[in-house]
């Protein structure tokens, strides 16, 4: 036993366990476990709340099993010792949660911690009395911690396979709100009954999903290598035609997506599209020009309100212009607003600019809401009766297929068109003289100015282009709801759009698309999640800045900028112990 546990090691393990314990307590107290405890992942086996809690000792055990590089005393690479490490860390993490259950059963904590409800405690206690429950949680924590350690010890191939399999199960299970209604609509009830039961996967389906995940991951790497090899071996003109055909295929895929996936999914796509359009606009301001604009929602609001004023016969103007006549006026108006807001703040340094634009955004919202401007802007009641310029239903018979689209399935297409237009324009701009000027300005304003870049003009250009793109989204938003309310335009919209850009990668268009899909699309899978959306966005902003400030799909030059500045610091730090350990174990 002396060999397996000693004081310095125990202290380190206690630290891992305690961090895990705090994480588990946080999940329980903030209400996430309670919110997800009835959402089945595998019906009758495990729920999403349990998955979240189990992930904590798993990660704690995994981390605790890593042998630190700098400490040699009493650490060995023996599998048994590392498994014990994982067990101890998991036990401590579980024990802390067990303590909460123990106390929660004795004293009613709900007066302060509203999420510690009897329901939650029942969920956590496995039907045992409180002391037994506390011990049981600790033991489960220890067991899962050991699994985490075993995962680390196991060969990387196996680790990858197991991880992919588990992720496949969770993903397919969580996609239930998208997949099941569609399967039933298309009369594949047999498949949907095989897959899902009570919003979770059935046990056979879970096994199938796990196997599918494993097979997929086993086939993926060689398949990708093969495709890459073929493409690289091909002559240039052939390569170009491959590229063109890929684009055509992707385009067709995007065009028929709402047809294949049904109305609910189309609704989600519309939402993603609206935010994507906003994010593409903000990306010009933040990603290209490097101006952190926290009042971006103001342009979204201006677009929506101008559309409402110009097209709705019920508005104070009451002229009821057709949408496509109004649109250029809306864009001009928003561009002018961009100039008006941009001009005074140009000289401000980065962080002051962020706060001033935040102030502008809030002023806009309060004015839209105020009684004082009510005769013109409708106050809290907003403006109603915006006509929808798009047909409510499309019925197309083109020989090979009969296309029927309704509601969001129709609106999807103009949004898609605007998004593609904005992405194309942004891409062309980024690779032009203007884009290079923005680049230079972002990296060093004084040097850019000295080399003849008119920073004032280029900043104004970025602001007004961003505003124009944002107002398009606002106009489509107004059309979609057929009404506008000031409540839709608070600062959280700006921050959501910022999170989309940060997650994907500032200045990277593919990144922005991925960011919008992840941050706007995924939450729609989880109804219970709505309340915690902003919590997660906040966490995403912090985590991305700490771990990967260039985003998931980085823009090359932006990545270099961010890392150049931090390189001094990274060189000073010792190499990451876990990487070394992983290399050692591999």
């Amino acid at each position, binding site marked *: 036993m002396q060999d397996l546990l000693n004081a310095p090691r125990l202290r380190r393990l206690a630290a891992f366990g305690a961090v895990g314990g705090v994480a588990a307590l946080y999940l329980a107290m903030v209400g996430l476990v309670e919110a997800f405890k009835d959402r089945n992942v595998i019906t009758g086996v495990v729920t999403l709340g349990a998955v979240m809690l189990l992930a904590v000792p798993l990660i704690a055990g995994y981390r605790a099993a890593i042998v630190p590089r700098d400490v040699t005393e009493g650490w060995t690479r023996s599998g048994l010792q590392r498994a014990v490490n994982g067990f101890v860390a998991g036990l401590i993490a579980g024990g802390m949660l067990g303590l909460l259950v123990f106390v929660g059963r004795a004293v009613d904590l709900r007066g302060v911690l509203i999420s510690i409800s009897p329901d939650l405690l029942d969920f956590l206690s496995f039907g045992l009395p409180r002391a037994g429950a506390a011990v049981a949680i600790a033991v489960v924590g220890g067991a899962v911690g050991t699994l985490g350690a075993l995962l680390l010890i196991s060969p990387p191939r196996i680790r990858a396979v197991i991880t992919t399999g588990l992720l496949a199960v969770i993903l397919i299970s969580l996609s239930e709100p998208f997949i099941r209604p569609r399967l039933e609509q298309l009369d594949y009830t047999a498949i949907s009954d095989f897959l899902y039961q009570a919003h979770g996967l059935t046990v056979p389906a879970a096994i199938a999903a796990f196997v599918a995940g494993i097979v997929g991951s086993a086939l993926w790497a060689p398949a990708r290598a093969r495709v890459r090899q073929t493409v690289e071996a091909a002559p240039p003109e052939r390569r170009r035609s491959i590229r063109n055909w890929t684009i055509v295929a992707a385009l067709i895929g995007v065009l028929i997506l709402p047809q294949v996936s049904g109305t609910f999914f189309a609704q989600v796509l519309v939402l993603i599209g609206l935010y994507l359009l906003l994010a593409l606009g903000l990306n010009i301001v933040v990603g290209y020009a490097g101006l952190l604009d926290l009042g971006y929602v103001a342009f979204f609001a201006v677009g929506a309100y101008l559309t409402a004023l110009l097209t709705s016969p019920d508005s104070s103007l009451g002229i009821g212009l057709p949408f496509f006549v109004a649109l250029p006026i809306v864009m001009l108006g928003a561009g002018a607003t961009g100039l008006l807001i941009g001009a005074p703040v140009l000289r401000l340094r980065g962080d002051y600019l962020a706060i001033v634009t935040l102030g502008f955004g809030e002023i806009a919202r309060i004015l839209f809401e105020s009684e004082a401007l009510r005769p013109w802007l409708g106050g809290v009641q907003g403006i109603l009766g915006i006509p929808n310029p798009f047909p409510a239903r499309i019925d197309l018979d083109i020989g090979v297929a009969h296309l029927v689209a309704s509601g969001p399935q129709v609106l999807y297409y103009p949004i898609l068109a605007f998004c593609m237009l904005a992405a194309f324009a942004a891409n062309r701009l980024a690779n032009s003289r203007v884009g290079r000027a923005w680049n230079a300005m972002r990296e060093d*304003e004084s040097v850019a100015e000295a080399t003849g870049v008119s920073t004032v003009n280029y900043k104004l250009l970025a602001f007004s282009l961003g505003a124009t793109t944002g107002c398009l989204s606002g106009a489509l938003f107004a059309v979609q709801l057929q009404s506008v309310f000031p409540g839709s335009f608070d600062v959280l919209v700006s921050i959501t759009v910022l999170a989309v850009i940060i997650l994907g990668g500032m200045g990277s268009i593919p990144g922005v698309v991925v960011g919008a899909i992840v941050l706007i699309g995924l939450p729609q899978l989880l109804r219970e999640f709505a309340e915690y959306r902003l*919590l997660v966005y*906040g966490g995403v902003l912090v985590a991305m800045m700490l771990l990967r400030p260039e985003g998931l799909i980085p823009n090359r030059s932006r990545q270099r900028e961010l890392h150049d500045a931090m390189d001094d610091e990274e060189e000073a730090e010792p190499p990451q112990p876990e990487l070394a350990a992983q290399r050692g174990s591999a």
Partner: protein
Amino acid sequence: MRATDVRLRLPQRFNLVSAILWGLRIVVVVLVLAGAWATLSSGKLSPDTWRDLVVFGIAQGSVYALIALGYTLVYGVLFMINFAHGDVFMTGAMTAFFVARNFDESGFLNANPIVALLILFAVSMLTSMVVAIALERIAYRPLRRAPRLVPLITAIGASLFISNSVRGIYGEQDQAYPTINALQGRFDIFGIPILKTQAVVIVAAVVFMVGLVYFVERTRTGRAMRAVSEDKDVAALMGINVDRIIVTTFAIGGALAGAAGILYALVFNEVDWFMGFLPGIKAFTAAVLGGIGNIAGAMLGGLTLGVLESVGPFLLLGGAGVPSPNQLRDVIAFTVLVLVLIFRPNGILGQSEPGS
């Protein structure tokens, strides 16, 4: 440094930007004069009302000033805007609420109001301090050398994270702070009747500010803080533990914010998870108004903003026949913010260009 250079080299001709800036100046001056004239000539509000508005403004201004000190202290040592400071302020007030409710139910609050208040201060200050220290350790320390926007974005994320965590842990409803019977009614100070709560708030804020000034000017740690804000590298060479001083700065800023949380609860009687956002931005405005990085400036800025915000809506908008002017009080605060940052970013007492 760069901002000054750019400004000096800008051609002094009348271009689009300066046209817009001049337009803005003229619009603001005309609006202020016209609004004030209309209100004063209509004589709708009695002198007593004006007096109450001013005293209320000073009370809320001293709360802003205490929060603003946190922004200013952190800016002094790190040159970053701690956007999550408003939420640090919120955590203290929210946590102390549960203690206050307990005291109220057990009758302790009204039996020993002074002891109870002191305990509430201690709880609130401790909570905010712990949150501020954790924030620095987890979110800001790894990013000391990152480009400026990176810690700012982190701070925005941290702000969302803290406020929504509190929402999940303590619930999302508004919580009404229990009232203290001993603080009902008015004191008569030099013939001016002042609400007791507001008098207590003003006095407490002054005590905290004096304590802070003493700490920064007279103690060893305070001297180290000043050294770090002058030059981190040289301070480190002089044997100062820079990391520790930075943590101390966050801790003091957090504690002052916690104190401000209790004072806020005394003035407004209500707390909720989102209460950090507006006071946070207003306190930042106050800090910039006074000159960010300057302790006296933060106090002056807080009081100025508090009074402007309380008197402004009635003085500038009431007389002009704007319906429900109080709805627009936040617009006044934001307008002050925008105008100060645009026209005088170094504030009333700031000497050098900020961030130079």
